[in-house]
């Protein structure tokens, strides 16, 4: 199955910018399905962790109010081209996905 995560990096003057987009419905539990007229159960990512060469560099706690197909960007120092960067998400239904990329 194709990954749910797109992870990109760019390093300028020692600062690495990380950009990620995750494919996920981020259902609030407040939305009514137009076909069944029933509430769609809450289904959302609540944790995201990013590791640089195995060490946590950024971690998120999210509510259901992060938009559908979440976008995330942050910046950190100390990475070299070719270092490993790993992003893992975890949702309220115990689904999870992870991707690893090399820093550019």
């Amino acid at each position, binding site marked *: 199955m194709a990954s749910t995560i797109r992870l990109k990096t760019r390093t300028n003057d020692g*600062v690495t910018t990380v950009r990620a987009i995750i494919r996920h419905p981020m259902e*609030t539990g407040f939305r009514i399905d137009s076909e069944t007229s029933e509430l769609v159960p809450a289904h959302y990512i609540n944790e995201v962790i990013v590791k640089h060469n195995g060490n946590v560099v950024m971690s998120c706690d999210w509510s259901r109010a992060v938009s559908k197909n979440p976008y995330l960007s942050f910046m950190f120092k100390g990475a070299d081209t070719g270092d490993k960067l790993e992003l893992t998400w975890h949702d309220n239904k115990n689904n999870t996905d992870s991707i690893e990329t090399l820093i550019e």
Partner: protein
Amino acid sequence: MLRRDTLKYLASGSIVLVSGLLKPLTALARWNDAAFSAVDFDEAITAYFPGKEIKESEQITIGVHAIVENGAVVPIKVKTDLPNIESITIFVDKNPNPLIANFDLFPGCVGFISTRIKIQQASNIIVTVKSNGKIFSTHTFIEVHEGGCG
């Protein structure tokens, strides 16, 4: 008897080890259920930073449009030049649950975060930054034409 106790000890130890391996994310991020479930802004921020004094700071900027058409996708950028940042947290006071997202920044991180959030109605966005163990905040008001929590 001694042998049996040792086996019991080993068995319980390995159970702890296995369950520890199964839940690395939960252990790391410590999702704060009381704060995320709170329906009132004051309740949410107090539950998230219990016993902490929160000071207004001009060293935090919130990049967001003052008027948004679609509350389901509101791009937001937070920048701060406060030193030794540990976390950036976003609240929206009129949302059903005002605590939106927390970002723990580890040493080496720049004071910057960008994401997209849902906003139900005209609200104050409140951003807090934990710097040197203290909590600082700033806020901005935004209008929403079509709410985004449906």
